[in-house]
């Protein structure tokens, strides 16, 4: 187009078209001048009524008699239409000036119109080459879409709504920054925290995204950071804009841990099922498999098209006949990551079933799989293992600790079995008796003022921690007046005894330990009362102490950790949760008291002993003899070697117990339901045997994995 044409007025270029006839849904006009041939249609007011759209610039589709579509842009205010292919239509149909053309509404919602030549000669398209030429046009190829915002840019031009060039350039710069990434680089790494770039993890992320097409079984041995691998892949997909809607299915006990890791390490805010009102409206959701597959939620989940589904502890899908398998298999997802350290537990078919969800048919049918790979003597051992491993390499990634060359430092456990002082022991006995008696008078409709089960358990745990923590809690209970009538006397007596405890034996032992440790130490306790006591005593002795608890703000927590890292020797913490903080600069950990939930103990240990720790670490347990804590400690230490397990292994062992209740719930039942000390000990012993068996099963499974995936 030369400059002189730009200077011409519209009237010069093309006079208003002459209306021939019009009705509600159509309009006929005579073609005048060359404007139409050049791609312009200037309309008169009657004709404008055919285009009743709100926008100032609107994209219109015309379909001609040859079913060829033409895209036009309609400028409402100035009443013209621009279309590049009007000229082609003109030529094809041998249109002449003065011919009559009709435009008919086909569908106002899709802004589609029919373009008809009334008196001209219509030529049917039969030339294959021409068809190809037309085929690759946005008008024809529905796979090409134009962003709706494009019209806004054009609108700004025609309205002379110009911005300073610095702003226009800024928008441009954003796109350059957002697009100019090297696809070999993992974007995710640049904004993650506490994610050390271990080679095996990076390899996994690259392999899943680039080779396995986003569907993979991540089966690293425990402790190598499968969650991190999944997080890296997830974040990378999100940043590359390939994934928007994500569902993570994990055991209920790991939901919080996953949420925390994703938040603190990857900056991702996943909502759990309790935090969402509707599944459809939430893009990042984490839920337990049981919750998602429940009658209430199942159909909601199945309706949604997910971009990425992550299933943790995927060995729970080993059986094709179970609801778990069928439900996960029915979820519509583009990418799928399944995480398990034990893809085979009892039978090779379990592996087949897992792969069938990821890529049905990859290992052929069950029968063929059995014929090709199963030996008759042992269901866990394959024949043709080399071929099987080759096939698995296209869908499964497994690293062994031995392959990664990562140094896993040793963990030394020191348990101090402490005789309580007489006054402490008496208080402990009195409280335990009180709890046992009162447990059977729990609140009912008739007697709502009874002490509830949770409070009783809490009292027991407080006593296990320290008399000071118990004192504080009893003072609060008595002050509340809630328990006045029935329990006043007993509570008063307990309070009296607690206040009279002169010294804490555990506290004295702790001081001795600290005296001998010249390095940084983290002391964990469950209760604020105990924390205050420990801090007071340590400061009295002149130690520098940082205090960390759940009531602190995020900024205070950051400051506290920084002080501990740089200036203070001791950190006293009530929080065992991940928090994603790197405390691996510390090598000594003291469990002043022990949570009954072993997962919380594992979390405490995980703060200093996991991938990234280069030095040996020391775990020091303080346990008062003949207390519930001592039984729990014995159970966890002696029966399943809790303090020596690799982080992540505990969940696998407990999973072999086949119990719907958590270990903490079982322990609470033992404590509260045992009529006396001997009965309680017997029950703990039975539980110990179960745990031993679970550990044995775990060891057998681990051995089998080794043979299948790495044996000759």
């Amino acid at each position: 187009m030369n400059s002189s044409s730009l200077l011409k007025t519209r009237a010069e270029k093309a006079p208003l078209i002459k209306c021939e006839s019009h009705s509600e849904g159509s309009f006929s006009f005579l073609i005048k001048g060359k404007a139409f041939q050049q791609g312009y249609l200037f309309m008169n007011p009657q004709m404008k009524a055919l285009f009743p759209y709100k926008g100032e610039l609107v994209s219109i589709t015309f379909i001609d008699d040859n079913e060829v579509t033409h895209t036009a842009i309609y400028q409402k205010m100035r009443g013209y239409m621009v279309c590049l292919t009007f000229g082609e239509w003109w030529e094809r149909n041998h249109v002449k000036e003065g011919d009559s053309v009709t435009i008919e509404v086909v569908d106002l919602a899709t802004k589609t119109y029919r373009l008809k030549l009334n008196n001209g000669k219509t030529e049917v398209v039969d030339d294959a080459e021409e068809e190809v030429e037309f085929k690759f046009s946005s008008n024809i190829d529905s796979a090409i879409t134009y962003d709706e915002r494009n019209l806004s840019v054009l609108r700004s031009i025609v309205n002379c709504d110009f911005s300073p060039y610095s702003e226009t350039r800024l928008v441009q710069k954003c796109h350059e920054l957002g697009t100019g990434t090297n696809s070999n680089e993992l974007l995710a790494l640049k904004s993650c925290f506490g994610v050390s770039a271990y080679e095996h993890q990076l390899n996994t992320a690259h392999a899943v995204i680039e080779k396995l097409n986003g569907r993979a079984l991540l089966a690293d041995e425990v402790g190598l950071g499968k969650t991190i691998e999944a997080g890296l892949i997830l974040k990378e997909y999100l940043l590359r804009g390939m994934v928007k809607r994500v569902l993570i299915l994990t055991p209920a006990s790991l939901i919080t841990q996953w949420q925390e890791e994703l938040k603190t390490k990857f900056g991702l805010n996943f909502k759990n099922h309790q935090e969402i009102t509707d599944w459809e409206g939430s893009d990042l959701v984490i839920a337990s498999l049981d919750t998602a597959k429940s009658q209430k939620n199942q159909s909601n989940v199945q309706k949604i098209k997910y971009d990425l589904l992550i299933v943790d502890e995927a060995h729970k899908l080993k059986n094709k006949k179970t609801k778990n398998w069928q439900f996960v298999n029915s979820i519509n997802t583009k990418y799928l990551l399944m995480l398990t350290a034990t893809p085979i537990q009892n039978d090779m078919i379990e592996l087949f079933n897992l792969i069938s969800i990821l890529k049905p048919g990859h290992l052929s049918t069950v029968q063929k799989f059995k014929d090709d790979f199963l030996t008759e003597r042992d269901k866990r051992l394959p024949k043709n293992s080399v071929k099987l491993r080759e096939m698995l390499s296209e869908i499964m990634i497994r690293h062994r600790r031995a392959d990664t060359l990562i140094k896993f430092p040793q963990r030394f456990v020191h348990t101090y079995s402490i005789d309580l002082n007489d006054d402490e022991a008496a208080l402990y006995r009195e409280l335990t008796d009180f709890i046992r008696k009162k447990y059977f008078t729990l609140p009912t409709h008739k007697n709502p003022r009874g002490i509830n089960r949770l409070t009783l358990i809490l009292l027991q745990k407080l006593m296990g921690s320290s008399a000071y923590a118990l004192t504080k809690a009893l003072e609060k209970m008595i002050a509340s007046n809630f328990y006045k009538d029935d329990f006043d006397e007993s509570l008063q007596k307990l309070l009296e005894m607690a206040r009279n405890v002169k010294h804490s034996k555990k506290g004295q032992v702790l001081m001795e330990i600290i005296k001998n440790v010249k390095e940084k130490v983290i002391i964990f306790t469950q209760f604020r009362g105990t924390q205050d006591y420990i801090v007071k005593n340590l400061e009295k002795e002149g130690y520098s102490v940082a205090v960390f608890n759940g009531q602190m703000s995020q900024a205070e927590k950051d400051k506290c950790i920084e002080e501990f890292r740089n200036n203070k020797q001791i950190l006293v913490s009530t929080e065992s949760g991940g928090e994603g903080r790197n405390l691996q600069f510390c090598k000594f950990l003291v469990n002043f008291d022990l949570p009954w939930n072993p997962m919380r103990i594992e979390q405490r240990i995980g703060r200093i002993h996991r991938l990234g720790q280069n030095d040996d670490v020391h775990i020091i347990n303080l346990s008062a003899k003949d207390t519930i804590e001592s039984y729990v400690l014995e159970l966890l230490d002696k029966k399943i070697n809790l303090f020596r397990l690799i982080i992540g292994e505990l969940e696998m062992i407990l999973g072999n117990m086949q119990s719907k209740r958590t270990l903490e719930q079982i322990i609470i039942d033992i404590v509260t339901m045992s009529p006396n000390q001997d009965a309680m000990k017997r029950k703990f012993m039975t539980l110990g045997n179960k745990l031993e068996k679970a550990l044995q099963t775990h060891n057998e499974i681990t051995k089998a994995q080794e043979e299948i995936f790495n044996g000759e």
Partner: protein
Amino acid sequence: MENDIQQVVLSYFNMQGIKCKESEENIWIAQIPEKDQSFYNCGETLRFTFNREKAEIYRDIELISEGSFLFRKIIEKLGSTPKVSRVFFGQQPLIPEDSGIKPIAEKMHYKTTVAFNFKVTIDCDQKNDKLYSVVEDNKDSSLKIDNKLFTLDLENYTETPDPRIKLDEPGPEILKKYLQACQMLESSIQDDVEKYRKIAKEKCREDMKVFDDYLNEQKAELLQKKENVSFHLYFFQKEEEIDKLINNLEEERKRKINELEEKYKVKVNISLINAVIVCVPESGVSKPSGSSAKIVKLKEN
């Protein structure tokens, strides 16, 4: 990259009228108006840093870096703001001193050309973003495509026109240029898109074959079972069960095939990032005396 990001983000805040200052080394504080607080997921103040080490230490501080969500949100917000600029070449047409020709004042006007910047996203099982510009040539008004964005050195340009020079408002021609640019862009990416299509089609075909074989074999196994079951006492019941399983397989086939087709469908999106209207003064001139008066066009040098 860190500097680029810092520059973009600070300019963005400035553009939004949000005040921010560096409260200590590498830590910035921005005062966020109430209406924007949910966007930034913060209260009245947003503390942020461009420095990874700082963010590692102070975890309540927002890290704005390549790959951080806030940066992505800012990019998306900015990207969704249509921006168009018009710039004017600052110098008048150069006329050789000894040529004797003179510009005709009433013929002075701005010749307008346009530059469109596009982002093309090809989305399949992988995603690929590419940037293009389609720029109108000042000499012959033809469009030229380039696989990088058009930028302008403002040194020779102003953002206000010379009032003595005639300036036309953009007319329908600009829309036509846009459509032509789109057409050109489509032709230019055609090979790329075809390549993606071919790869995706092949992958989809492979996956579908594996899946089909799997279902067919399963179906054959079930049909075989059905044959054998006819001697069973309760064969009617068994047959029904097997028929139900076969139906389930067919349902699964439909569902998985849809899933695969959706996964490997090549989707192309063309978005117009921005546009720049470049105006260059142009003039008609009179020939030196003695020759017949004829308008000669002079281009910018």
